């Protein structure tokens, strides 16, 4: 019985660790800030949850399990908030790869400010040279 519990706990811990690894990979491989925030929320949250489940099975005693439950709950509550704030700032600073966007329903008149232009290749206005690095802020 305890061998079975060990196997389940090990599987949860390994799967959670692998998911956290893919979150890290996503931070490196994804093309822009918005996509990177996806990697920072979904696989990472799921990975943390799985690690918590594995640890709760392996650690005896309810005191630890309650603590892990709190960690999981706050992870679920806070990860979307931080991801939202970072991606909102990134969108306003135009750190968006517009050439990858299939649809953009948010780019209304109020959001097209030329002054706060980002430095991604997709942000360059058509027919104009790329701004030099010194001007980007």
């Amino acid at each position, binding site marked *: 019985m305890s061998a079975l519990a060990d196997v389940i706990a090990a599987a949860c811990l390994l799967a959670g660790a692998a998911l956290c690894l893919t979150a890290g990979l*996503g931070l490196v491989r*994804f093309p822009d800030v918005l996509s990177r925030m996806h990697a920072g929320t979904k*696989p990472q949250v799921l990975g943390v949850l799985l690690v918590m489940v594995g640890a709760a099975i392996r650690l005896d005693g309810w005191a630890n399990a309650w603590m892990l439950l709190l960690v999981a709950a706050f992870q679920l509550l806070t990860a979307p908030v931080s991801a939202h704030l970072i991606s909102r700032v990134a969108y306003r600073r135009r750190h968006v790869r517009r050439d*990858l*966007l299939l649809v953009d329903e*948010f780019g209304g008149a109020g959001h097209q400010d030329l002054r706060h232009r980002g430095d991604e290749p997709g942000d360059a206005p058509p027919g104009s040279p790329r701004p030099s690095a010194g001007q980007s802020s």
Partner: protein
Amino acid sequence: MSVEPAATRLRYQGPLIAWLVLVWVLLWGTFSWANLLSGLVVALVLLALLPLPHVVGGARVRPLPLLVFLGHFLSDLVVSGAEVAWQTLRPGGVRSTAIVQVQLRVDSDLLLTMVAEATSLVPGSLVLDLDREQRVITLHLLPARDLADVERKKAHVLVVEGRLARAFGSADDIAAVERDEQVRAP
């Protein structure tokens, strides 16, 4: 701070106090009367020093729709976690994304917050903006394969919203959701 009747304050702050005490007891790990009382003192001091605005349109919880929501939420979490993990691993990398806006139906701060949290975690989307007055949520979709895929993800946000409204919403919210679903149904 304006002076309010004690009953109103208790009604709005009660759930918050209960939540703070629960966190306190969980942090200690064991239940004892000493923990409960000290947690109560800490919660009251916190609320006196850092008063929070009232959550208007307080939540009622319906157990069965709540279970429906939680079940779908967990399965969605696993699916979207696996999907984004695959996007990080696959050789071609991310090819296309999308930014879309969805018109929501519910009209309560609490429900809109829950919808934003849930959609951030589940169906391949990330909240960019939430217009409180127009009730329009702006999302970034990560694997956006084609236009049909984008439409399907937009529809899924509305489904999540419907589940949340049925689990926590007022009768008005549920009615608004159902009216809209009847309009959409062919």
